[in-house]
């Protein structure tokens, strides 16, 4: 019998007790209450259908046809050691934190700068009834919209809780590796990352998502909450190069304090279903948000990028550049919203979403969006879709490049505008090689 999204939902709700039992959390632990409330919200909302404006182009129900079971065990047979080289970025020295199948792996992790930030895995933070953890769990901002956030909250099992102390400059990035490996069956992993950057800090964080579930369809449901203090700078990189058949839902909620800069970089190039929702709130004056994204899709990839930059206070600046390369039968979705709240005067906000469609089967849905409630602002957005310029191709061909290489070179140049924004040299080189490899540029 066909399993539907509704079946998946009712099963998740029915089996919640089993999940709780397996986790063996203390009954008196406040988490029980938080989980139950989240479950109630999830139940009320259910999985989105195409009728939900935010899910119009991502028919998630279509993919929810397996018995996704929330994973509570750590597979003994897992081969993290074998899979870890996939996450290697050559030349990158970093504070490495590894999560496999939604569970922290201390043995594979390595924190170099122990004195500069605190790390605790969420599972032990729950057991220790960490007040900071609970304060964050109770402060989810986007409470209305996304059932996956509530699903995550109800079923969260582990994740990283990172707190960077005030006046700290991290010398090395924090590298969060999130792996999903096959373990016979279709599993749901709910991972929560909580990041707090203090005042007067400078740091970069790289998250890398790898899904090796193969024939099994794992659903990784990630929710990351970031808090940036005042006068700080945070670069946040997300790599989605190894998702294969996996389904990936990523929600990001970021709050930026005054005179701080937050930059995010998304590189997505794989995955049966990938959805990234970034909700960035500039809530301190004179803060800046920079958003860069590159989705280069092929085959049956489906990648849905949603960004909201929320100008809640005056005098902030935001800039967004998301580029798409669509090949094969892929579907690319971009929805970028600039929100200017009443009173957020002197806002400057820019957004640009150029797309390159390389094949007949590919489809693009772009929806740049402005919602402006203050008058003294400058907000612009632009979106384009097209193919490679004939004249540019001709120029290269008349200089001796064959058609395939000319096309590859121009596509690479298109992508490079985003890649060049990456500030960590080792990561930039890694990305350059990735894209070159994908485009098959030969000498």
């Amino acid at each position, binding site marked *: 019998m066909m399993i539907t999204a509704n079946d998946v939902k009712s099963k998740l709700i029915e089996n919640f007790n089993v999940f709780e039992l397996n986790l063996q959390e203390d009954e008196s632990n406040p988490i029980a209450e938080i989980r139950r409330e989240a479950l109630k919200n999830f139940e009320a909302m259910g999985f989105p259908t195409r009728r939900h404006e935010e899910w119009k182009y991502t028919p998630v129900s279509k993919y929810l046809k397996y018995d996704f079971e929330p994973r509570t065990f750590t597979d003994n047979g897992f081969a993290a050691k074998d899979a870890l080289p996939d996450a290697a970025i050559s030349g990158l020295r970093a504070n490495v934190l590894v999560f496999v199948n939604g569970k922290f792996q201390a043995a594979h992790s390595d924190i170099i700068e122990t004195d500069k930030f605190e790390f605790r895995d969420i599972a032990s933070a729950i057991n220790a009834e960490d007040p900071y953890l609970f304060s964050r769990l109770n402060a989810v901002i986007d409470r209305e919209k996304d059932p996956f956030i509530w699903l995550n909250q109800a079923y969260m099992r582990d994740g990283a809780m990172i707190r960077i102390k005030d006046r700290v400059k991290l010398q090395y990035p924090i590298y969060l590796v999130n792996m999903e490996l096959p373990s016979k069956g279709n599993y749901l992993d709910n991972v929560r990352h909580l990041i707090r950057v203090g005042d007067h800090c400078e740091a970069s964080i790289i998250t890398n998502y790898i899904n090796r579930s193969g024939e099994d369809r794992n659903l990784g449901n990630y929710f990351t909450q970031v808090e940036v203090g005042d006068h700080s700078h945070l670069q946040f990189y997300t790599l989605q190069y190894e998702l294969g058949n996996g389904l990936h839902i990523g929600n990001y909620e970021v709050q930026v304090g005054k005179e701080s800069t937050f930059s995010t970089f998304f590189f997505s190039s794989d995955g049966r279903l990938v959805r990234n929702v970034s909700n960035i709130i500039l809530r301190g004056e004179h803060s800046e948000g920079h958003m860069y994204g590159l989705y280069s899709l092929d085959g049956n990839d489906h990648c849905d990028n949603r960004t909201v930059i929320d100008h809640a206070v005056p005098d902030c600046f935001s800039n967004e550049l998301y580029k798409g390369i669509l090949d094969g039968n892929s579907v690319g979705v971009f929805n970028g919203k600039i929100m200017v709240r009443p009173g957020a005067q002197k806002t400057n906000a820019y957004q640009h979403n150029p797309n390159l469609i390389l094949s007949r089967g590919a489809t693009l849905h772009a929806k740049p969006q402005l919602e402006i409630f203050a008058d003294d602002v400058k907000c612009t957005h632009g979106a*384009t879709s097209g193919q490679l310029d004939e004249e540019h191709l001709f120029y290269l061909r008349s200089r001796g490049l064959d058609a395939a290489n000319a096309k590859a070179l121009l596509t690479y140049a298109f992508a490079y505008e985003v890649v060049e924004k990456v500030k960590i040299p080792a990561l930039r080189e890694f990305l350059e090689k990735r894209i070159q490899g994908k485009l098959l540029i030969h000498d």
Partner: protein
Amino acid sequence: MSKDDKIIQEVAGSEYKYGWVSDLDEDRIAPGLSEETIRFISAKKEEPEWLLEWRLKAYRQWLKMTPPAWQNLDIPPIDFQAISYYAAPKPKKKLESLDEVDPDLLATFEKLGISLEEQKRLTGVAVDAVIDSVSVTTTFKEKLGELGVIFCSMSEAVREHPELVKKYLGRVVPPTDNFYAALNSAVFSDGSFAYIPKGVRCPMELSTYFRINAAGTGQFERTLIVAEEGSYVSYLEGCTAPQRDENQLHAAVVELIAFDDAEIKYSTVQNWYPGDKNGVGGVYNFVTKRGICEGRRSKISWTQVETGSAITWKYPSCILKGDDSIGEFYSVALTRNRQQADTGTKMIHLGKNTRSRIISKGISAGQSQNSYRGLVSINKGAENARNYSQCDSLLLGDRCGAHTFPYLDCSNPTAQIEHEATTSKIGEDVLFYCRQRGMDEEEATALIINGFSREVLKKLPMEFAVEAQKLLAISLEGSVG
């Protein structure tokens, strides 16, 4: 209070200039909607059986539908049973000349500044004047008749040209297209019908002036324009409405069909009662307008200047089916006080080498909310399709909102889409420049708004461009002086 603020307050606060009620002897039915109502309307208009069936089918479908909720509008619930679906001036004799028209009616037109006689004599515009729901008079018919152009009310078309109506009615906007289109299909009272035969270039602009004139009467216009191969027509539509305290629903449907090499230019100036300063009253304007470029090299161009209505829900669209066809949309939407507008266009590219162009200018003042919502959809077969969209918003005052919701869907790699949007207020430097040259702030604001809207205004036929400019000026009076 700074001068800036004063201007803004004046803009936001100016009252509607066209508000009055003209006292016409009316024939209307009690409020309520049922199959009986529809049978009544149909019988009253002596319609053929097929049209009644068509209406009933739409009605039955409408019962199953719910009002759309996706728009960025705050629409108070509408009691569809509280609306009277038919109001007509007293049963009319066939009119031969203007003398036979109700003098009150003529006075109404005079107040609007569109005296039929003057129109007839001076401007060369044929006017199919619609008061409330039934056409009262049609001018220049004979002259058009010589060329084979049919321009008449929809009821007359049903009687005189049933084969054409039957063939084309609902072809672009099916009776079940959306909630309001279904309602219109069920209860439409009258409207205009234009048919331009093959190879004819319509020698004058066809024009209809609408007025909503009966308190509590929804107006459900149905307009159908068919341009045969190689023909050209320019159609003007303009509206003003009397001041009222209760909301009036207007759910019109406009269908345009252009065959090979035909061109239809459809221009609208809309100035219905927008409600008072506190948002009380005002017209709800929920319109479905759609044109199809059926033939190769055909062209449909929508131009609209929207200054009225409490709530506007309107998306004039083009289905570009024929190869090399062109769709255009030019719009100025001005909202003030507590007006809400959610308007834009849809360009559906189906044929090869189809081109579309969207220019939308939004001006928000007071506490109004002004949204552009548009779709550009390039289907698989639309080789080399081309779209250019530009949406600019101007904000006057810090309590209004301007929003842009463009949707771009592309399934063909050879297509090229460009979309850009900006939102800002009038630049201090621009104002400063004007003031330096001796203009006061009001003149400067008027000049700048005029310039901001120019690209759209210049697309209007001359008669309309003047009226539209006047309308913008009146709407912004206080600042424009």
